[in-house]
């Protein structure tokens, strides 16, 4: 039943919406459809088309597997959990459209979304309508400041970037750090976090350079940083440009330790850089297959059913765990006989506070909109990613 609902996630729903009142009435104005009333729904607004669909679709697949598993195990107190999935194209405008629909048509108390532009764009709607928005994947520190009803279940940059900064200063005993960051929201915010944490741990930030998102050459910035003579360089960039930056740094004779964050934790980096990748430190916000049997089984399922590993593995792990988190909240609300509203969902989520999730482990959601989460530090050793520490 659940598979049926989500296998064609977008088209039929849009069809109904597009046809206007008649289509919509089928859904909300027909209490006679008893099964629908039994269901506990939450919204899922992800990019299913467009340039980000590669990730969005894998994440949705992971969510679907989790819902199937939850329902197979009896659902939430016997009631099936369902996700109403809409496409955002990772585009704020389309995202707003999707979320408006989830709230005003489907009346979901909770909706899940990702991609920082969409997360920000729909925040006012969540706050106005008192619907709980769970951001899963955006890591700009600004996500914590979007309003009363916007929470993240994914650690923001202050968690992993701060961890890698502290690790460099205290464990690796680096004294002088340089930061090279992309001039976009995540880059700027994360670079500030790095600077604060590294300085806080007793180090000095001797270089601090931004680069244009469209840049293809970083010689100027790298020379500037090279002149500052740091012990460690932190790069806050994109999947696409970070390998090039590292290559150029090495070519220009900067052999210092390089650190970055979760975006570069993928096999592509090693392939692109070869030996030059050795010693690069990245973060992962979820345990890998070697650390958790559940994750191992999960990755094996991907290889078996889809024939490949998921794009952006850690992100799919978080999306996979989101239905479990939602189920816990709904379960608490049912137990306390609370009305299924966003305000109650928020209260209950904060009351629970600590969640134990299958693929990502323990998660603490703080009332100040941040989360506590262990950070896995990964390093390229002999051409492969190795876990070197778990911090936080």
């Amino acid at each position: 039943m659940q598979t049926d609902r989500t296998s064609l996630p977008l088209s039929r729903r849009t069809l109904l919406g597009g046809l206007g009142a008649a289509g919509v009435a089928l859904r909300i104005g027909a209490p006679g459809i008893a099964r629908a009333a039994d269901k506990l729904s939450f919204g899922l607004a992800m990019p299913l088309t467009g340039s980000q669909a590669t990730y969005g679709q894998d994440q949705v697949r992971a969510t679907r597997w989790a819902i199937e598993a939850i329902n197979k195990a009896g659902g939430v107190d016997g009631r099936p959990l369902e996700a109403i999935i809409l496409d955002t194209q990772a585009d704020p405008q389309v995202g707003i459209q999707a979320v408006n629909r989830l709230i005003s048509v489907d009346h979901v108390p909770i909706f899940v979304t990702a991609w920082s532009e969409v997360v920000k764009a729909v925040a006012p709607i969540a706050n106005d309508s008192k619907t709980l928005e769970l951001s899963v994947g955006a890591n700009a520190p600004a996500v914590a400041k979007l309003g009363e009803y916007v929470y993240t279940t994914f650690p923001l940059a202050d968690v992993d970037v701060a961890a890698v900064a502290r690790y460099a200063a205290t464990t690796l005993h680096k004294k002088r750090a340089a930061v090279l960051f992309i001039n976009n929201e995540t880059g700027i915010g994360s670079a500030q976090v790095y600077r604060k944490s590294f300085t806080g741990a007793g180090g000095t930030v001797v270089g601090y350079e931004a680069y244009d998102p469209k840049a293809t050459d970083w010689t100027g910035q790298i020379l500037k940083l090279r002149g500052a003579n740091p012990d460690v360089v932190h790069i806050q960039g994109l999947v696409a440009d970070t390998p090039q930056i590292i290559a150029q740094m090495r070519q220009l004779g900067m052999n210092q330790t390089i650190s970055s964050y979760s975006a570069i934790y993928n096999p592509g980096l090693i392939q692109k850089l070869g030996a030059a990748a050795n010693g690069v430190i990245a973060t992962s916000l979820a345990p890998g297959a070697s650390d958790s049997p559940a994750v191992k089984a999960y990755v094996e399922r991907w290889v078996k059913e889809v024939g490949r590993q998921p794009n952006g593995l850690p992100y799919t792990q978080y999306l996979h765990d989101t239905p479990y988190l939602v189920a816990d909240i709904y379960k608490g609300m049912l137990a306390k006989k609370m009305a299924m509203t966003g305000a109650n969902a928020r209260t209950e989520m904060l009351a629970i506070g600590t969640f134990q999730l299958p693929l990502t482990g323990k998660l603490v959601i703080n009332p100040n909109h941040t989360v506590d989460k262990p950070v896995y530090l990964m390093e390229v050793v002999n051409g492969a990613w190795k876990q070197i520490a778990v911090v936080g």
Partner: protein
Amino acid sequence: MEYLYTIIVMMALYVILASSFDFVIGHGGLISIAHPIFYALGAYASALLAKDLHWPIVLAIPAGAVVAMVASVLVALPALRVSGDYLLIASIGFQLGVIEAIKNLDWTGGAGGLSNIPGVSITQGHGPYVIAVVLIAIATVALLRFVAHSPYGRAISALRDDEPAFIALGRNAMHMKIGIFALGSAIAGLAGGLYAHYFRFLSADQFGIMQSAALLTMVVVGGMRSIWGPVLGAIVLEALPQALTFLNLPPSILGPLQGILFTGLVLIFMFFRPQGLIVAGDVWTGRRNAKEAAHVRRA
């Protein structure tokens, strides 16, 4: 309903944008593609006035239109000295430059976009706002139709036909071009304000060249210089992507396929119906043609 509302609002906004864009490039013959940037300026100005200075929305939106208009005049004074292809490229430079500037400034929300813009909230209901936007769209089309058929419209036609001859008759071409540009841009700015307070989130990248291409497509597919062409173009091309999602295709190819069908359709139009869905007449017509005919015959 919200889903439908949003589509209606977007259609109405695109009607406003495509019509005013057609006024500038079709009627005015000023080949600028920077129209979305005046949309952006109106949107940002209105949003910031309402958000930071707590202006009421009904004042902030027209103020956004004024900001867009003033900016357009300031750009036009140097930029309209060049024409044709050069103006086109200058407009690209201006458009992308402003986008970069918005992304680099703090008070515009920077690259991450401007969120939590005051607006009509979903709980109060969007109905009245949607109706207002639709009415403004209708008023815009009516206004542009009025202008196009007025003596001003006659002068625009003459200017587009032959600028040196126009000047030699004692007409100030530069003055007119600035007027055309300012009116078109002010309307775009107005649309920007309407957008900002409905969607309540702005990011600079959404006003880039792809937006220009979308507007151009609406104008060309609809039919340049015909008042109803851009209106139809805006409605059809806004509805088309929605319709494409009915095809029940696997989502992995739906995204690019949407783009392929969209651009492919435009190309088909360009080659097989270049004049657009609605064909503009070759000859300018004013209002009250019958009356003036009688008048001349009497004379």
